[in-house]
Structures are given as C-alpha cells and as structure tokens.
C-alpha cells in the first residue's frame, strides 16, 4: 500500500514547531494511509504502556427517527465477537445466524402488514387495536429459540477476554452524537493485539445475543429515567433545537424494540470503513514503528464510498421559547439557554471562558439581589459538552425557595443584558482563563483523556483545531465576552425553562 507518509510528516513537523512556542505542547504526529485511515501518535519514549483508541465518525446524528439509540446499540453488539473470535463452531453458528436474519426479515414484513392493527394512535397511549398478531408471536418465539441455539455455539466476552489476558486496562467504548470509540491501554510490546482485534471488529463483527443486549440498553435508559431531571432536560433540549439530532436522547423506550439487525448492519457497513476512522496512540511507541504495524492489520481494507456526513442545520433563531414545567421532586429553578456555534467556529472557544467567568459573576449578582440560589453554566446536551454543530449554552439557576423564581428570572435576564453592555471585570476573566488552563493540564496529564480530546476534535472538526482552540481561550478578553453576549444572547435565540412545584393550572 502506498502512503502519504513523507508529506504528512513534514506538515506535522511544521505544525509542531509552531506549537512548541505556545503554552500547549501537543506533539501529535500524523500519518494518513492511501485507504483514508488516519493514524495519530504522541510519542512518549520510555513509557511502558500505550493508550490506544479507534474513533469512528458516526453517532446518534446518523440515526433515523424511530431508531434513536441505534448507534449506541451498535457499539454494544460490536463487543460480541467475529467468526474467528467467540465461535465454537462457526460453520454451524453461521447457519443459525442466517436463520435468525431470515426470521427477522419475516417479522419486519409481518409488522409492516399489521401496522394498522398495531399502531398506537392515542395521544395517551390508549388506542391500539391489538398489541400483537399470532404470526408475530410465532416469529418472536422462533427468534428466541434460534438465539438460544446460537448461544450454545458461541463463547461470551470474545473480544474483551483477550485484552484482559494480555494486560489490557481501561477497556471502554462510548457512543455519543458524533462519534463511536473503542479504547484500551496495553503494555507497549502488545500493541499488535489492539490492531488485530479492532481491525477484526471493524470488518467482521457478528451481532450475537442481539435481543438480550437490547435489554441492557433498556436498563441504561431506565437509569436515565430514574433521575428526576431527565424528563425536564429532554423537554428543554427539544425546546432549544428544532432540527438538529444533537438534541435527541439516546433512544426512547419504544425505539429499543425497533432496532433490527438489518438496520444495525447498514450503519456498520456504511460507517466502519477506513476513510472514516482514526487511530490514536499515546505512550511508548513511535510513529515509525506504528506505520507498518497498522498497515499489517488495516492495510487490506479498501477505501469505501465516503459516508454522508451529517449536514443538519437549525433554522435561524426567530422567537423566544418557554417551557413551564411542574415538578414536586425537582428543585425549583429558572434556566435560560441560547444556541451557540460548534467547534470550528471562531466564537466557540470563547464560550468556555464566558461560561467560567459569567458563572462566578452571576453567583455574586444573585446573592446581592437577595436570591438564594446556585448557578451552573454549562454547554451540555445529553452527555456531551462540545459539538461540531451548533448546540447551546445553558445558564441554570436553582433556587432554594420557589417564591423567588420570578425574581431569579428577572435578575438573570438583567445580568445577561448587562453582560452585552458592560464587560466583566478583567480579573474575573483572567481567573476563568487560568481555571480552563489548569483543567486542560489535568486532562493532558492523563493520556487517556488527552487521546479522547484529540479524537473528539477530529470528529467535530479536525485534530489540528485542538491547539488553536486552547490558545483562543487563553487570548479571550472581557470585550470578547461582551461581544459574544451582544451577538448571541438575544431574545429570539433564547429558550427559557421554569420549574415550579405543584400542578399545572388547567
């Protein structure tokens, strides 16, 4: 396989030399293979272990309605092994999986045929002619029986067991709106194991125990729903965004029953291709060593048709929106959200500084106004705080006494207006910058977290954006923050949530 090796190393050498004069030293070395696979390495000579991650540029943004959470589910079933890992008798097991697939196709046909009977038409989930048909029951029973047969022909934990046996630690996988990643830390001289297992997982995954694993996601969703805040937050998310998939939670309960092997296979085959994949290593390896090793395991993969990237675009902000939420378990609060740009936009790093500086200012301001409350400013939607697409900044004020909600809202809005007119004190901004810088060092000192940030920036924009992003935060001034407030904190870009105790007046 021919590579771009020399050119890309030169480009990186230039980049690194520019960076070395700054506060943030990120000596990332890059190599891009002809099939599009990207290899990023931070060399730490002498270290005995290596952090290894594989990022795929896909996530919840790529799901279709009715299949929310399918990307996350795909991550789960990609732990179930391959023909060469986990099968006791692949020839026989393969036949059983073929029968399961055929039964699932028949089930889909029957569900389609019976849709008018099965479809829930009631607003209050109270008008459905029937919950099932005899044929659906037969097919589900058949799939259950075939699942048991397949289980008899396979072993559990076929991927993770080998990582563990050879000293792997920190085995995790994560799927969020814009990425899926698998990661492991290994002794340096066993890094080949990562390449062997991940290349196999990327190309040959068998979705074993599909229906049992579906229920594991149900458990995770129930865990979300146990939080008093979840329903409210999801309502706020949907209030803020009208089009973007950023705002959709990781699956509604109904969606879990909709996932099919066929749909998961489509996602898998579309996105798990070399030209949509980035490998990241930090530790006692060198780029020179890793180039041929990666080539050995991933070099046979053909460049695939470029997967369609998510191009969702929110309509222009055009009205203030408001959510009146009643809850006797959630603390009373007022929350104001504004849409903000994604990573890659020059304003985005400044919002990190604004978050820190304004939170400190607002906490003092509400105290001075006689409001007993706690301020939290964040940019989180579902579990993620940064996106490559527009999302939101959330200014939350939880009050001790519900009778103070109106006063809290007035104070909050007044301070937001003031922020656009009167720059924050310079020392507050300097302190915010210092806090962000220290937090970054706490991230960078941990090779796992550092590798994650590199991979996350690569899927949001480019790994090359990371260092300029950090430097832009360090250069932020009070005037910059005032400009942001004037530009983004406008009524038409505002969503307000108010949580009060009691029942909704009819």
């Amino acid at each position, binding site marked *: 396989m021919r590579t771009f090796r020399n050119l890309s190393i030169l480009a990186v050498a230039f980049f690194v030399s520019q960076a070395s004069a700054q506060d943030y030293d990120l000596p990332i070395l890059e190599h891009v293979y002809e099939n599009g696979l990207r290899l990023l390495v931070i060399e730490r000579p002498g270290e005995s272990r290596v952090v290894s991650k594989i990022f795929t540029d896909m996530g919840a943004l790529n799901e279709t309605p009715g299949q929310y959470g399918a990307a996350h589910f795909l991550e789960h079933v990609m732990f179930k092994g391959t023909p060469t890992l986990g099968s006791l008798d692949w020839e026989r097991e393969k036949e059983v999986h073929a029968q399961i697939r055929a039964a699932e196709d028949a089930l889909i046909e029957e569900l389609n045929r019976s849709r008018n009977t099965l479809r829930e038409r009631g607003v209050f989930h109270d008008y459905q002619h029937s919950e099932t048909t005899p044929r659906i029951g037969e097919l589900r029973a058949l799939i259950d029986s075939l699942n048991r047969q397949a289980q008899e022909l396979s072993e*559990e934990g076929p991927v993770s067991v080998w990582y563990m*046996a050879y000293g792997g630690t920190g085995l995790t996988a994560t799927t969020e709106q814009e990425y899926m990643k698998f990661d492991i830390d290994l002794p340096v001289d066993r890094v080949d194991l990562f390449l062997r297992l991940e290349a*196999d997982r990327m190309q040959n995954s068998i979705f074993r125990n599909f229906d049992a*694993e579906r229920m594991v996601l*149900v458990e995770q969703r*129930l*865990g979300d729903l*146990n939080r008093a805040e979840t329903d409210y937050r999801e309502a706020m998310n949907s209030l803020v965004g009208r089009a973007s998939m950023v705002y959709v939670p990781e699956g509604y309960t109904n969606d879990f029953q909709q996932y099919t092997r066929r749909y998961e296979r489509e996602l898998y085959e579309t996105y798990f291709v070399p030209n949509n994949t980035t490998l990241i290593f930090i530790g006692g390896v060198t780029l020179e060593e890793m180039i041929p090793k990666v080539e050995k395991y991933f070099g046979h993969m053909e460049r695939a048709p470029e997967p369609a990237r998510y191009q969702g675009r929110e309509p222009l902000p055009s009205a203030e929106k408001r959510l009146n939420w009643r809850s006797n378990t959630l603390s009373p609060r007022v929350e104001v959200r504004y849409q903000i740009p994604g990573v890659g936009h020059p304003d985005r790093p400044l919002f990190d500084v604004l978050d820190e500086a304004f939170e400190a200012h607002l906490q003092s301001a509400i105290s001075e106004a006689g409001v007993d409350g706690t301020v939290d400013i964040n940019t989180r939607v579902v579990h993620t705080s940064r996106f490559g697409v527009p999302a939101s900044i959330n200014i939350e004020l939880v009050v001790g006494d519900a009778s103070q909600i109106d006063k809290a809202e007035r104070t909050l809005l007044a301070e937001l207006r003031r922020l656009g007119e009167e720059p924050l004190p310079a020392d507050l901004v300097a302190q915010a910058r210092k806090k962000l810088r220290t937090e970054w060092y706490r991230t960078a000192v941990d090779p796992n977290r550092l590798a994650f940030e590199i991979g996350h920036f690569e899927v949001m924009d480019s790994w090359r954006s990371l260092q300029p992003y950090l430097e832009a935060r360090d250069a932020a001034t009070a005037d910059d923050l005032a400009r942001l407030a004037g530009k983004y904190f406008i009524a038409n870009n505002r969503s307000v949530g108010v949580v009060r105790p009691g029942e909704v007046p009819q």
Partner: protein
Amino acid sequence: MKQLILLAVFFAIPSLSQDLTHPRDMGLPDSDYTRPDPTEYQLTLENGLIAYVAEADQVPLVTMSAFIRGGLVSDESQGAAESLFDALKNAGPSGTSSSDFKASLKQMTAEFVVEMHDEWTEVSLNVPAEDLDQVLPMFAGLLRQPAISEENISRAARGVAPEANDLGGESGAALYEGSMSAAVDRFYEIIYKDHAIGRRPTTVEFNELEAEDVAAFHAKYFVPGNMTIAVAGAIDVDEINGRLVDLFGDWAMAEVPEVKRMPAITRMRAKLHHFPSDKLQSWLVIGHDLPPVPLEEQAALDVMNYIMGAVHLNTRMMRVTRYKYGYTNDASGFPEAHWYGPGGYTYRSYSRPEVIENIYQNMMGELIRIRDEEVTEHEMFVAKGALADGSFPVRYLDGYALTRSFALERLRYGNHDRSASYLQRIRAVSIDDVLNAARKYLRPDNMQVILLGEEAFEL
C-alpha cells in the same frame, strides 16, 4: 433466492489478506515488567516522616498528598474524627480565616480532596506549578495545625443527622446515581450493627464534644511517624526534598499511636433485607463480612474475585446476568478489606424489578458453583494476565500513581514487601488455591441480601 444471496454476502468470509491470527497464537511477548524501586523516590526525615517524590513533567501541575493512619473509628471522643474532617475540608491552616483559605484555593484553581475512611485519612492538593510556593506552606500548615473550632463540631453533627440519610427526594440517596451507594450503606449498617466499625457519634455526643477534644485527636494521629506524603509533578525532586525538610523537619517526633485492631464480626445467617424505593429499577447487594486476609492468601482471593466479578465484562457474574440474558448493565464483586479489622465482600447488581429475582438466583448459583467446582485453566490464564500485566503495573504507571501507591503501602504495612512479591504471588496461584479461597471467603449461608426497590422475592 434473493434472500439467500444477501445472506451469503452478509456472512462473507473475511478478506484473505486480513491477519486473523488468534490472539493466543500471535506470539505476544511475555511480560518483563518490574515494579519501580521505592527507595529511588523515598525521603526519610529524622522525625520519622516518610515522603515519596517523583518528577512528572508532562504538564505544569503538582500533586501533593498526605496519608494519615487514623480515621472515623480511631477516635475515643466520639465525633472528634468527623469534626476534624470538617476542619480539614473547610477551615484551612491555623492563622488563616476559612474564607481566605477558600479564596486561595480558588485563586490557585486547586483541586482539594479530603477523605476520611474508617482507619485512614487523605489530604490532597493539585495545583499549577506556578503556585507551588503558595501551596506548600498551606499544605504543611493544614496537616500540622488545622484551624479547629466549635463550628466544625456543629457542622459535623448536622452531617450525621437522620435526614442526611433519607432515601427519597431529588437529592436523596435513592436516585439512580446514588441508589447503589444507598444499598451498600444499608449492607454495612447491617453487618456492622453493634460493631465498633459501625458506630457513629450521636447528637448527644457531639453536644458534649469540645474543640480541645478535636485538637487532641489531631495531635495524637497527625504525627510524623503516623503519616506518609506523596509529591509528584513538574518539580525538581531535590528542591522539593529540601522544601519538605524545611516544612516538616522541625515537626517534633511524637509517639506513634498504637494500631487499633477491631474484633471479628459475629456471623449472621443469610437474610433478605428489603428497603422500598419508588424507582424504575431495583438494586441488589449480596454479601457478608470479609475477615483480614493474610498475605499468603491475598493473591488467590484476587484471582478468584477476578474470575467471579471484578469490574470487567468477562466475569462469571456478568455472563449469567448481562451477557446471556440482558437482565442488567452490571453485576460485579467488591472485596473491601479494612486495614485492621473486618471489611465487607459484596456482589452488586441492579435491574428492572421483574428480573431482579433472576439476577439473585443466577448470582447465588455462581457463588455456590465456584465453591464446588474448579475454575478452568483458561480462566486462570486470563485472571493472572489481567492482574499481573494489567492492574498491577498501572499502580506504578507515572509519578503520581507510584508515589501514591508507595506512600499508602508504607503507611499500611510499614514496608514494601507486598508489592515486591505481588507478581510472583499471583503467578504462583493454583486452581486449588482459588477453590480454597472461594470456600473460605464466600459463605452463602451468611449472605445478607439487600434489595432496594420493589418487593420481589424471598430467600
């Protein structure tokens, strides 16, 4: 026919050029890992204080931690430990006001951790290297002379009030994030009922407590020979060693308090304890006490626990709950030894209420099976590899990790013999050793079963 063709493509044989050598045939090298030598990092002061100092200059940060052998069950004046904990967290060093102390931490953007366990305490600070001159005297002052006042006693008293243990409400312990902790707390309340480790001060005892009692507790336990220190980060080791001598060298040597060994727990018959909770899931804790584990049995217990339920995807517990049936997201084992008395050994899971009984039955089945049947060679291979080549080296991965590990080991055992022999001990564990460990440390007849959630089953 079309369907058959699609299926054939779906299960196409992987490309012939893909290297699919099985992991066990890849020729992966044997581990040549050796633990770092603690003496290379050790500084011993004349007053008996031992510190471990390492340079770790990837980023301009410094972490300093002190570990003190003394905690919640060490105090003779009930409530003194809790009050000292509050003083360490909130008051800062003597001579500084609480608000100035907190403002300094904020200005430095410090991460400040104070944890008080039953038998030991940790005080840690992580700050930018530029603030080292400011933080070192603060760190020393906090350890040597914390500002202790009546306010610390009243705040600590409020912390043990019954409402702080409520299972309901938004901030209550029974929410998803806290429900397992709540169930585990109930477990420990049950096994430590009427035991010294479970004793907590009452409001009356707090009312009788005075700041002098708290100061006396501090003076007894926070002495150079009863403490170890770890410092790592963007530092010059020689310079830090000198600073430590300056800051702690004149601290008078004092008598090291005698280790307080706790009696064994009276064994209880297996019992279900149900705690209602109006949530969408139920939480399950199965366990009993864990007696102090002698050195010669520790490795076998580690291997047995790894096979059964250490927190990873391929344990027996995960296979019979999550992997095969999708009952739960997690089922894991937690041997939680105490330093000088009985700890607890629990297996924990959670699920939708309708399958919690299945989880209980399957977990109990595995607890019985590992006492009856030998584990496999394959399970031994995986567990030993994971422990010897994975979790153990990670304890010494960088300056922060190794100074912390050495400081804690020294404080607990007085030497580094355990870590020196760990790899050898793990590699020597036999299948019989695992069987013996299971029979000794897993006792189905004594299992206390905590069910937090809907009523679901009886024993």
